[in-house]
């Protein structure tokens, strides 16, 4: 049988795990992924992860504002202008609906973006290297191909020295 392609370092403590990630990076080992039961900001910084979702949310909101205003303008000024109380057709109070629906656009499309990027849909089978990462384990995943120039036993020692509870294969 072929050897499993990934090595897992299983940690009990998030701080030990982040230190391990730090020393792995120092040793030119590529950390493929980290699984944890809660978000750990240090890991994002160490792995230089960034997300562009905020820019997209801004665009969604802007589209919301503009399209809602276009709709209100078209209905109230062009399509069926109704004059009441001598007020202008293009009313300042449109701002209320524009404001509310901008938020709706932002929330709904941000949700959809997250779902598309992370493939979060009902019925998707989860593929986790170690399901204990949803409970109390912090798991570093390393690809065998990306171990830099250290050997497997050295890698295992490195993980153990940093407080890894187990070193498994997957």
């Amino acid at each position: 049988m072929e050897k499993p392609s990934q090595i897992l370092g299983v940690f009990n403590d998030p701080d030990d795990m982040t230190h391990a990630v730090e020393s792995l990076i120092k040793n030119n080992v590529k950390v493929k992924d980290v699984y944890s039961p809660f978000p750990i900001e240090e890991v994002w910084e160490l792995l230089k992860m960034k997300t562009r979702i905020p820019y997209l949310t801004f665009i969604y909101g802007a589209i919301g504002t503009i399209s809602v205003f276009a709709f209100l303008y078209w209905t109230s000024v062009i399509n069926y202008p109704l004059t009441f109380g001598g007020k202008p057709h293009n009313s300042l109070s449109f701002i209320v609906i524009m404001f509310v629906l901008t938020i709706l656009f932002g929330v709904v499309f941000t949700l959809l973006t997250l779902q598309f990027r992370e493939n979060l849909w009902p019925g998707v089978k989860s593929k986790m290297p170690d399901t204990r990462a949803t409970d109390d384990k912090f798991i570093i995943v390393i690809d065998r191909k990306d171990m830099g120039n250290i050997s497997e036993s050295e890698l295992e020692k490195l993980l153990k020295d940093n407080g890894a509870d187990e070193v498994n294969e997957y």
Partner: protein
Amino acid sequence: MYNAKIRGVLIEGDKTYADISSDVTRPMLIDKTPVWWWVASFVASAMLVWGVWGFYNTIVNGIGTWGNNNSVSWGWAIINFVWWIGIGHAGTAFSIFLLVLHQKWRTSINRAAEAMTIFAVAAAGMFPLIHMGRIWDGFFIFPYPNTRGPLWDNFNSPLFWDVMAISTYLTASFVFWYIGMIPDFATIRERTVSKIKKKVYGILSFGWVGSARGWLRFESAALLMGGLAAPLVVSVHSIVATDFAAGVLPGWHSTIFPPFFVVGAIFSGFAMVMTLMIIVRKVFHYEQYVTKGHLDAIARVLTFVSLIMGVAYIIEIFVAWYSDNPYEMYIFFHNRATGPYAFEYWAMVAFNAIVPQLFWFKKIRSNITVVFIISILINIGMWYERYVIVVTSLSKTFLPATWHSYSPSVTEIAVFVGTIGFFILGILMFMKFLPMMAISELKGILKETGAHDKPDFRDVLKAKKKNKK
């Protein structure tokens, strides 16, 4: 990593990460459904059934089955609508304001508060629906291309803003609530041994894995949604207030209304969160997560908001006098403070502005029974506030010939009781089937705020491991 003790201990009892998972999932996965749950569900269902009768009677026979009349055209339906919306404000106010302000003590409470929001707003939404009289024409409120012109909605009407604001609020709150539960569903999915539960929670968890990139996107999206929904908390109730303030009736036509309503909504919502959390921590033994410190913090917020309420009541009276408008003065001095609605008015003032001031005393704040009673009194007081606003202003307007009193009919009472049953049933379902506290967020604050600083956390873990061996 973190050693700063900003707010002291938020999770008591030397918990580990595994303890949190098992404590929160215990009622769903291990414990037998307790007897009180069935009893409460039965009572709530009975209330709901009576409410369904009220709905049926209203829809089949029309609004004539209510106690409304030509003068008091808005009765219990609007009072209850505003009351529920107010309660529905706390969840999001609580969870999002405190999220944006990085207040860690929200962590064990926000999930329940958001659940409360969803059910309260859903209960509120039923009232405008049946208040239309012809519910089968309900789609008229949406701007859709029609054969009447096409005639569009009046986009300058607060009533239309209300439709938009509340449906947006419900959507955004639901999304925020659900997104927060996805990692917890994954935890449950991996913990349960039952095949059906594994399947159901597996579907609900959307295949969440908890990778670093996933968490980054998740956190970013959740914070953005929170930031977007935060202004909604203010706008929804401001818009509800403009329903009143845009009317020219004395007692309604006032610029104080939007802020006054928003503060009132946060007030009643926080009181309901308090009521709910006291019950939850007691019956599910979550005293170590929802500590006395948490309840103390909510009580302090309530004290402050109660002061704002008191000031608002004084300002209303002052402005009525200062305006020198005889109608305004009549409403405040002869139809509210004295006259047939004096009981409701003074109950409102006492429950909202005076009784919560007892929270200044530490002895009262730390006595859970008293806190529980006060939190319920606040919600009764807030109901009276809406009653006072709606009924006193409508019953005696400019022409004495149109004066009319108001009392609710059995159908109206049935509808209100039905929505309470719906709300309680929703909360009971939430307690039984969903994680009551945000498991992943609790784990996230455990290191900073857990009660394990005396012996070092790592030493405790190592000791536990040794014991196992």
